[in-house]
C-alpha cells in the first residue's frame, strides 16, 4: 500500500496499462500537457505520440476514431475534457459503442474506455458540473463506472481498461485531491458490476457512489452518535448495477436511502428504488432518495452549495425514514420536485 491522491492513483494506472500493451492508446485534448485535470501528466513524455495522442477539440471525430481504433484491434482510452461534453458524443457512446457488436451479431472484444471528470466542484456552472451517470445508465450494453475513493479509482480504472466491453469511467472532480491507501500492485483490479459494503450497519441501507460516498461516510458518523446505524453500499458501477447486494442489505434493514448528486427526476436512485420495491415480499420497505433538485448548477458557488445534496441531507432522510412510514425525497433548499 501507498498513500496517493485519486489523481496520482489514476495516473499510475494509466502508466501501467500503456506499458502493458503497446496498442493501448490514450486520446484526448491537451494530453501533451496531462489532459483534463492533469490526470495524464507525464504520459506523453513517457510514451510518445504513438500512444498519447493529442486531439483537436473534436469529440465526435476522436470518439469515433476510438471506435475505429478498437475495431482495428487497439485498446483506446479516450478522455472527455469534462463529462458534461459526453452529451456532445452521445451518438458515439450510446448509438455506436454499445450497439456496434450487437447489431452486427459479432460478439467479441470492443475495449474502449471513456474517461471524463464530472460533478460539482464549487461554481463551474451548468455545463461543467453535472454528474452524468443518470444520462448513461439507460443505454443497454454500456458499462458505467463511478469510483468513490482513491483505491477504488485505481482498481476500477484498470478493470475498465482491461475490460472487453465499452466502458464509461466517471471521475468526480472533488475526489481528485482526496488521499487514501492504494495498492501498488500493477495487477490490482476490482470487479466491474460488483458493489462494495463500505460500512456495515443495522438500521438503514444507504446507497451512495462517487463523491456522495464520502458524504455518506460523514453522515454515518453523525448518525452513529444519535444511535442510528447505517450500512453504506457503494455500487461502484452504475451499469451493470449490483442490485442483489442492495436487495440483500435492505432485506435486513427494511429501509433504503439512495444518495446521489444528480437531479432527482429519472435518477439512478429511481431505478434502484424500483428494483428494491419490486423485490419486497410484504411491501413494507421504506425508501427514499437524496438528490439535487431539477435545477441547473448556478455559477455562484454560494447558490450551488444551497442545492447540492450532502451529508446533512442524507442524515435528514435517514432520520425521517426511521421515524415515519412516509417516504418523500430529500432535496436541499425546499426546491420543488417536479
Amino acid at each position: 500500500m501507498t498513500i496517493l491522491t485519486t489523481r496520482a492513483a489514476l495516473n499510475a494506472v494509466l502508466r501501467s496499462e500503456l506499458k502493458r500493451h503497446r496498442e493501448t492508446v490514450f486520446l484526448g485534448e491537451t494530453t501533451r500537457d496531462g489532459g483534463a485535470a492533469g490526470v495524464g501528466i507525464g504520459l506523453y513524455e513517457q510514451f510518445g505520440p504513438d500512444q498519447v495522442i493529442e486531439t483537436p477539440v473534436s469529440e465526435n471525430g476522436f470518439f469515433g476514431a476510438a471506435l475505429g481504433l478498437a475495431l482495428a484491434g487497439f485498446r483506446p482510452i479516450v478522455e472527455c475534457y469534462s463529462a458534461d461534453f459526453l452529451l456532445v458524443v452521445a451518438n458515439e457512446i450510446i448509438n455506436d459503442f454499445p450497439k456496434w457488436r450487437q447489431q452486427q451479431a459479432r460478439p467479441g472484444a470492443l475495449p474502449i474506455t471513456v474517461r471524463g471528470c464530472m460533478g460539482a466542484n464549487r461554481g463551474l456552472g451548468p455545463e461543467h458540473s453535472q454528474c452524468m451517470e443518470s444520462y448513461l445508465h439507460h443505454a443497454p450494453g454500456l458499462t458505467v463506472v463511478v469510483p468513490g475513493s482513491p483505491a477504488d479509482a485505481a482498481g476500477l480504472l484498470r478493470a475498465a481498461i482491461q475490460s472487453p466491453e465499452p466502458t464509461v469511467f466517471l471521475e468526480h472532480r472533488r475526489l481528485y485531491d482526496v488521499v487514501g491507501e492504494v495498492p501498488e500492485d500493477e495487477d490490482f483490479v476490482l470487479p466491474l458490476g460488483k458493489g462494495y459494503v463500505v460500512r456495515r450497519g443495522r438500521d438503514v441501507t444507504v446507497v451512495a457512489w462517487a463523491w456522495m460516498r464520502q458524504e455518506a461516510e460523514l453522515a454515518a458518523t453523525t448518525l452513529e452518535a444519535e444511535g442510528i446505524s447505517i450500512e453504506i453500499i457503494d455500487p461502484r458501477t452504475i451499469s451493470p448495477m449490483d442490485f442483489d447486494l442492495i436487495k440483500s442489505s435492505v432485506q435486513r434493514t427494511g429501509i433504503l436511502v439512495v444518495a446521489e448528486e444528480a437531479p432527482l427526476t429519472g435518477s439512478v436512485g429511481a431505478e434502484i428504488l424500483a428494483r428494491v420495491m419490486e423485490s419486497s415480499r410484504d411491501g413494507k420497505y421504506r425508501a427514499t432518495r437524496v438528490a439535487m433538485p431539477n435545477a441547473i448548477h448556478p455559477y455562484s458557488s454560494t447558490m450551488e452549495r444551497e442545492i447540492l445534496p450532502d451529508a446533512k441531507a442524507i442524515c435528514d432522510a435517514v432520520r425521517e425514514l426511521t421515524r415515519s412510514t412516509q417516504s418523500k425525497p430529500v432535496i436541499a433548499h425546499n426546491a420543488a420536485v417536479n
Partner: protein
Amino acid sequence: MESTLADSRDDLSLRTHAHPISAQELIKTYHLMLLSRRFDERCTQLLRQGKLVPHYHSGVGQEALMVAPVIPLKRADQMIYTHRGYAHLLAKGISLKEIALDMFMKVGGTNCGLGGVMHVSRPDLGVPGREGVFGGRFGIAAGLALAAKLRKTSDVVVCFYGEAAGSRGILYEALNMAVLWSLPLILVAENNGWSFTSRTEWLYPQGRMSRVWRGFDIPVDVVDGNDVDAIFSSMTAAIDRARSGKGPSIIEGLTYRLDPHIWYDDGLYQPKEEIARWRERDPLVLAAARLRAMGRRDGELDAIGERVQAEIEDVFRAVNEARDARWQDVQGLVVR
C-alpha cells in the same frame, strides 16, 4: 429554370488516367454492377407484388460509383459503405447470398436479423460494419486509418458517404484530423442528385458535396460517377497517395438515383425528363460500351448476363429456403 445536376456538368475536373482499368478489372466491375442491378430489380419487383423487402434502398443508376472505387482495394483495406445499394459490399467480396439473407432477416447472413441489410459486416474482408445515424462514419473511418498509420502498414480506408452524412459537422472534424495526421483515408462522396426529396443543390453550394473541402489543400476530385474509367483512375491515384503516407483525398462522383429513395417513396418529385436524361447515361450501358470498345464481343457480355441471372435465382432460392431469424438465435449474444 433551376439548374440541376442533369443540366450542369461543366465543372468536372477528371484526373488524367494514370491507372487505366484493365480488361479483366473492367469485366469484374461490369459483372458486379450487373449483379447489383438485377438484385435491385428483383427487390423492386417484389415490392410491386406487395411483398416486404425490409430497408431496401435501391442503388439503380449508381453501380459504377459503388464498384469501381473498391476494385483496386486489397483485402486488408477497410471500407465503410452507405445504406444505398449493395454493390460496395459485393465488390469487397461479400456474397450476394449473405446480403440477401440479412435483408430478409433470415439465419445464415452476417447478423441474424439484428442489423438486417443496414449493418452487414465481414471484418475478415475489411468491412467492419456500418453506423446508422449518418456522419459517425467519418470518425470511425479516421480511427481505422489512424490504426493503419500507427501500425505502419500500407492499408487504406475508403469511406463512402451521401448527402445526409456529408452535411454533418463530424466530417470537418475527421477531415481535419486526417490532414493533420496524414491519414490514409479516401472519402468517396456519392452525389446522386437527391437526398430523399431534397435536391443536392438545395443542401450544398452549387450542388457539389466536395466544394467546401478545397480549402484543405488536398486532392478534391469531381468525377463522372457513371464512368468506370474516370472513377478508377481517380481512385487509384488517391490510393497511391494514401499508401505512400501523403494523406487523405476526396473524390466526388456525380451520378443519379434513378429509383425512389426508399421502399415507401413514390419518387414523384423526380421529374420524368430528368430521369430519362440520366437513363441515357446508365452506367451499365456505358460500361458495356467500354467493354465492346476494348474488343469484347456481345456473346461474352451475354454470358455474363446469363451467369448473373443464375446467381440471382440461386440467391432467392436460398432466401426462400432459409429460416427466419428469431430472438432465441441471438439472445445469448446480446443480453447481459
